[in-house]
């Protein structure tokens, strides 16, 4: 990889600019189709919207250039394109609802949230000079996360929407604190695990050929498991429960490298899910609506109505979709939020659906790549946590819509209507870019003189590894080194 061109290629700000151009094209193209097909033609609103979108793209690019010049060049454009696509679809769904006499203006609200989200991400990039600062707030984050998770259960504050108690009312607005709790937990888990990984990695008794952790170390896992079960039962939200528990187990595994944690974790989760399904009627009812969605009796009871309508919508889209504005996404309840992927599947077809999944895959892959690249364990765990939680969240929500798993109330990152999710996910992107900036900058040595980030702690970075990470070949070398060092432990 050592070529003369490496500086511009490695840093990728120019690539980012080009990709942002594509992202703008996706966002504006989708919006143009929506306006042309349902919004009464392309007019002044489209021109204003285009100007704002392009201005935001330029602003974002400039901020990244100044404050995180070595950040991963793909994250921002991918999130930008997904957000733009979501905004166009939500606007389209407003029109669909209007056709059936329902007056909504989700699009305008969501546009504001998208701007807030992007600004939040830029603030993170601008003001968080080093992610390692966050390690100081490990337990604060843990408390905040727990608070966010449990707040909806507090009477008077929490609100139940569509059967799930995952909302709170704040200043007359609905808020989904679980979305922010997700990031808080990523920070908490990362901080906790990076401090305790040595203990947690200690070997315990061997059962059926698998070396289990020591029983006394099971405490934290059991606590998180109990919290996850509580969430599922009390908030009627299988999705969040699966997300938090899965996130913890994944991070635990990455921190300790012990597959036994995954085995124990999965066993616990399966037991919890089965138990909840056996004991609690509403959980069983969810399972039933999933397994027998198309049965007449289940459908007529209304329990699988939304799921089945979503499937009908996606099926009618077929391979190439009806085209934006030509389908009937408004038939599915919550087409703008929980079922935005079904709406997109209907109008963009399997082709569009796959393209969107691929965009997410790129974001997740970049997050994991950042995790491999960064050298501090805390940063690795945060990047893994963010990347994996996004993948898992997408799996839970899209899996629910396409009937792989029971339907839950999680949001689709960047696409779905909802401010909490939009802001939280943009913050996550900001964090990832900050971490990737640090890892890539030290790897490529293209740091502008006097960059504040540079003072973070270059001395802490072991010199041999500084040149190592960054591309596939050197990663192998690095992992070999890591194995050596761990063997020595």
């Amino acid at each position, binding site marked *: 990889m050592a070529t003369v061109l490496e500086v511009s290629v490695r840093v990728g700000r120019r690539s980012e600019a080009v990709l942002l151009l594509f992202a703008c094209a996706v966002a504006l193209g989708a919006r143009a189709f929506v306006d042309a097909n349902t919004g009464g033609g392309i007019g002044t609103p489209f021109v204003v919207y285009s100007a704002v979108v392009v201005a935001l793209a330029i602003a974002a690019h400039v901020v990244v250039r100044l404050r995180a010049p070595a950040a991963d060049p793909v994250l921002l454009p991918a999130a930008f394109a997904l957000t733009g696509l979501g905004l166009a679809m939500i606007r389209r769904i407003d029109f669909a609802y209007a*056709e*059936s006499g329902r007056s909504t203006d989700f699009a305008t609200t969501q546009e504001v949230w998208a701007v807030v989200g992007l600004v939040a991400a830029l603030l993170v990039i601008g003001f968080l000079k080093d992610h390692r600062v966050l390690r100081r707030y490990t337990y604060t984050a843990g408390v905040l996360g727990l608070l966010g998770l449990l707040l909806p259960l507090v009477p008077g504050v929490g609100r139940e929407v569509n059967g799930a108690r995952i909302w709170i009312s704040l200043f007359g607005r609905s808020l989904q604190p679980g979305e922010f709790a997700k990031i808080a937990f990523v920070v908490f888990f990362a901080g906790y695990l990076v401090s305790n990984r040595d203990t947690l990695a200690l070997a315990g008794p061997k059962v059926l050929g698998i070396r289990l952790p020591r029983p006394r170390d099971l405490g934290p896992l059991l606590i998180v498991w109990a919290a996850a079960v509580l969430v599922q039962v009390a908030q009627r939200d299988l999705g969040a429960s699966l997300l938090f528990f899965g996130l913890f187990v*994944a991070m635990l*595994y*990455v*921190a300790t*490298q012990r597959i036994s944690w995954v085995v124990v974790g999965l066993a616990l989760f399966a037991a919890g899910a089965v138990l909840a399904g056996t004991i609690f009627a509403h959980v069983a009812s969810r399972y039933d609506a999933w397994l027998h969605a*198309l049965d007449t009796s289940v*459908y007529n009871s209304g329990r699988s109505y939304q799921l*089945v309508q979503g*499937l*009908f*919508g*996606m*099926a*009618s*889209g*077929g*391979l190439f979709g009806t085209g934006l504005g030509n*389908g*009937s996404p408004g*038939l599915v309840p919550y087409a703008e939020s929980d079922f935005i992927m079904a709406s997109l*599947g209907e109008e963009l*077809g*399997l082709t569009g*659906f*796959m393209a969107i*999944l691929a965009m*997410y*895959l790129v974001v*997740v*892959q970049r997050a*994991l790549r950042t*995790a*491999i690249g960064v050298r501090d*364990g805390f940063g*690795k*765990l945060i990047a*893994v946590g963010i*990347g*994996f939680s996004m*993948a*898992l969240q*997408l*799996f839970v929500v*899209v*899996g629910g819509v*396409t*009937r*792989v798993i029971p339907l839950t109330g999680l949001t689709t990152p960047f696409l779905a209507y909802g401010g909490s999710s939009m802001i939280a996910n943009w913050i996550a992107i900001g964090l990832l870019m900050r971490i990737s900036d640090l890892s890539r900058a030290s790897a490529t040595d293209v740091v502008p003189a006097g960059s504040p980030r540079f003072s973070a702690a270059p001395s802490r970075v072991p010199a041999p590894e500084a040149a190592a990470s960054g591309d596939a070949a050197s*990663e192998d070398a*690095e*992992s070999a080194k*890591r*194995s050596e060092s761990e063997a020595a432990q």
Partner: protein
Amino acid sequence: MNEPIRRLSAVVLLLFLTLMVSASWVQFVKADALGEDPRNVRTLYRQFGSFRGPIIVGGQAIVSSVPIDDPFDYQRTYSNGPLYAPVTGYYSIGPGRSALEATENALLDGSADALFWTRLGELVAGTEQQGASVELTIDPVIQQAAYDALGDRTGAVVAIDPRTGAILAMVSTPSYDPTVLAVHSSSESNSVYQTLLNDPAESLINRAIGGDTYAPGSTFKLIVAAAALEAGYSPDTLIDAPQELDLPLTTATIKNYGGEVCGPTDQVTLLEALRVSCNTAFAQLAMDLGWPAIESAAAGFGWGSELSIPLKVTPSRLPDSPNEPQIAQSGIGQFDVRTTPLQMAMVAAAIGNDGVLMKPYLVDTVRDPDLRVISQTSPEQMSTAMSREAAAALTVMMQSVVDSGTGTAAAIDGISVAGKTGTAETGTDTAPHTWFVSFAPAENPVIAVAVVVENGGDLGNEATGGKVSAPIAKAVIAAAIARAAGTS
């Protein structure tokens, strides 16, 4: 920590692959099945979202799709709905489709193979898919005359052009209005449908061709007479006609209507037996001719055939290997003999058409949206029911029924009408179904009509085919004759 991160990436990839497979499953593999699910409103939107072709009678669209400002884009409208409902059926997002709306669906919505080139043109031009128009053989004047003549009574009228088999009228009462089923609310149309379904009037049933078949009563004597003529009898052949016929093997007897005698002696001619509708004579005649002769005569007129006109017609039935008393009962159209008004109209049409039975049909011409003819039905011979001579003899016998027999109520000045009455017993407590089967003008018929009125109409137990059904047939024939005179 990089090794577990790599393993985790594999897990992530697996998660995404699962989603891609499941999305392909929904959007590709199962897409057609989900699209055909009756609960899938989108399929209906797509159907209603395209211009569905009209159904045309006498140059006027009786069913058409008109643009409407709702998600369906088009509203199916039925002008004069109840009059044509048995023929057109309904097109509803609730209960679905029936009658021609169902059988001609592919043509009407434009998806038929015959419209391939039209569709290709639309695809290239970027215009929306349009359906073909379906022109019927129904004559609006005759249809209206039949509907008016039947009035509030429960029953059916079928009129056929004997020369071609073209169905000129098909009325079933009480009828319903398909408009109320075509509303764009599945809950509303379903509830209307349920109401109609549970209504004892059974207005959804097309009595002319299906649902419950009727005992033909004395109109079946035409088949027995045809069998006799084919077997060498002539109208003048004397046959036994006792006042009361003892049936073999049982203590039961057959009497004439009102217990009357058929003639001064115990023997009458075949013509006379038909003219006065002598039960004992035809019961004995049926036994004399033997069951195979009657079965074969009935089959020649279409009995037992699966017909689609293109509506599905319930095949008429005969009893399986009846014994002697059952043959006697069957000979006067009772016991297990069952038929439809269309079948009886076919009997009249075949007799009037020199013994040749033409295949009945409802759809005349189908045109694509540019009015090019896609298909045109050409008259088709279905069978030879009887010889030309036998048919001529039976025609003379049927004329005597209208001239001076049981069917005088169907007589029209200046027109020779050939007919046969029928009064089918339905049970000890219920009034009989009354029949009239006829064609006119006798020498060169332009119309064959069958009329059935359930349970005696407004006359109750006093009802006979001659009193109740013959006047209805007369009205229909008069309309057809006037029509023929006006157009020729």
